[in-house]
């Protein structure tokens, strides 16, 4: 009799219904804070929407998929999606690779370990607004990098070159965010049992080999996390291209979708179009994330 009741409860609420209690604060938070704005955003994307004063009588006709059609036909917007694709292709693999390698190196008992760990972390915590100035100083047409490169310096210079602007932004963001991802891997590495390394060493594996056979599989959940977070951050890039290339860069070569969303939505008052851009971005990132998760997390 007890078992049937428990069985029924389990069928209704899952094996450990206490989980519901655990997640309730978070769920309430999501509902109270994000549900309404998200709902509005979806609603806006199907209308010729603009924000209006409370009580103002304004005409906001339903326009169906017009906003979405605009997103896929506007050359500036299409260019911005391409820019983000370029960014992700450079940033994500570089981030994963560098972060894991550096985290492994920083995990060992090396001299000055604290100093090294802090130095990789510092760019992450400094506000972009201040750091960008230094980066500009480096990559200006008469900056340090070009002075060092001499004749090899590209012309037009890095940030005013349509082909190079986005890659430079990608390198900047990789550099800036790396500290955080190193941290994620450092934390994950603590839970890779030492015995595995010892047994690999006993089997005669070199350091490189044990890296591939022990470390990489051992931190797989963290890798999923890193890839996902890097993809999401990259897709939602706004401040960095804006600061480094003064808005959209030469000919919109480094405009990001979120930047255009801000421009059309908040500056020009076309909230409906901005919402459609946002929705397309969200769906795109979700698609990429699902693919990533499938490829990486097979548990």
């Amino acid at each position, binding site marked *: 009799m007890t078992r049937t009741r428990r069985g029924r409860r389990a069928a209704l609420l899952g094996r450990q219904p206490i989980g519901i209690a*655990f997640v309730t604060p978070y769920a309430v938070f999501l509902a109270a*804070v994000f549900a309404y*704005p998200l709902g509005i955003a979806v609603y806006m994307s199907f209308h010729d929407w603009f924000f209006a004063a409370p009580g103002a009588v304004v005409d906001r006709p339903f326009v169906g998929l017009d906003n979405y059609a605009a997103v896929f036909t506007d050359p500036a917007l299409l260019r911005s999606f391409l820019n983000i694709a370029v960014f992700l292709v450079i940033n994500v693999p570089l981030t994963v690779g560098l972060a894991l390698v550096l985290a492994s190196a920083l995990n060992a008992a090396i001299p000055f370990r604290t100093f090294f760990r802090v130095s990789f972390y510092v760019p992450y915590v400094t506000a972009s607004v201040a750091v960008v100035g230094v980066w500009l100083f480096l990559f200006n047409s008469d900056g340090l990098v070009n002075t060092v490169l001499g004749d090899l310096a590209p012309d037009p210079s890095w940030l005013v070159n349509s082909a190079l602007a986005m890659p430079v932004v990608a390198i900047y963001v990789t550099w800036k965010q790396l500290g*955080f991802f190193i941290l994620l891997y450092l934390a994950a590495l603590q839970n890779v049992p030492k015995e595995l390394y010892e047994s690999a060493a006993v089997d005669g594996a070199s350091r490189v080999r044990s890296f591939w056979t022990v470390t990489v599989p051992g931190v797989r959940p963290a890798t999923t996390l890193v890839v996902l977070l890097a993809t999401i951050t990259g897709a939602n890039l706004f401040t960095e291209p804006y600061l480094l290339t003064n808005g959209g860069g030469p000919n919109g070569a480094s405009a990001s979708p979120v930047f255009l969303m801000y421009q059309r939505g908040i500056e020009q008052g076309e909230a409906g179009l901005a919402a459609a851009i946002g929705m397309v971005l969200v769906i795109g990132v979700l698609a990429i994330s699902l693919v990533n998760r499938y490829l990486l997390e097979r548990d």
Partner: protein
Amino acid sequence: MATRKFHPLRMLALAVGALMFLFPFYYMLVGSLQDEPDSTPAGALPDPGNLTLGNYADIDERLDLGTTLLNSGIFTGGVLLCTVVFGVLAGYALARLHFRGRALLFNLMLLVQVIPFQLLTIPLYVLIVRTYGLADTHLGMILPFAINSAAVFVFRQYFLQLPKELFEAAQVDGASELAILWRIALPLVKPALLTAVLLTFIGPWNEFLWPFLITKEADMQPLAVALANYMSNVAARASNPYGALLAGACVLAAPVIVLFVVFQRRFVATNLGSSVKG
């Protein structure tokens, strides 16, 4: 015990890397101490004749560093508290407990992270200011950031990394889920906790747009906002505007770096193997 390993190649690579990472911050520091702005490559080396703490004095005079830092602290502290308490619960449940709605919540958590904040800003502002009436309050600043979904995700991933046997053993012993979480799982994910704290810290600490919209009273504004305001207007009047800006940025970055230096020592491997066997 392991002797200190010293591999010259590895050290060299790390040193070069560290140099590349530190150089801009070092340059910021030098720039903030300069009396006259020197934007030539030679200016990268501190010139004793050109050093001054005047930029820091400038910033402190125009912005009330004490109050703004306090506001930043309250904002960030509030977010940290909510995230650590409620986020850990949610992350643990998502990782290890089976309940109805788990998949839905997980996907919602992902969804919330994917959405760019700029998309939600204005409706969120209307919600918090009009519906909840929280303009010019610390709670209004904290609310949209209260539980960092990325942190929840981090918690989930690290709880996932813990071996099943650990939990099965505890369940066999009849422990309640809360006890398992508190006594067994949590101590093992200290690195994850610290990571999440450091991750969650940066967002509100450096956040400009949201507090700017929510607060108009100058004495409620956090440092990031005050600094941005300063930059947009007053900076140009200072004798070394760029230097003053860098001074502000250094002040903004300093507490986080200190926090990290203190906490990163805790990234020490736990003896996972023994706790399973024992």
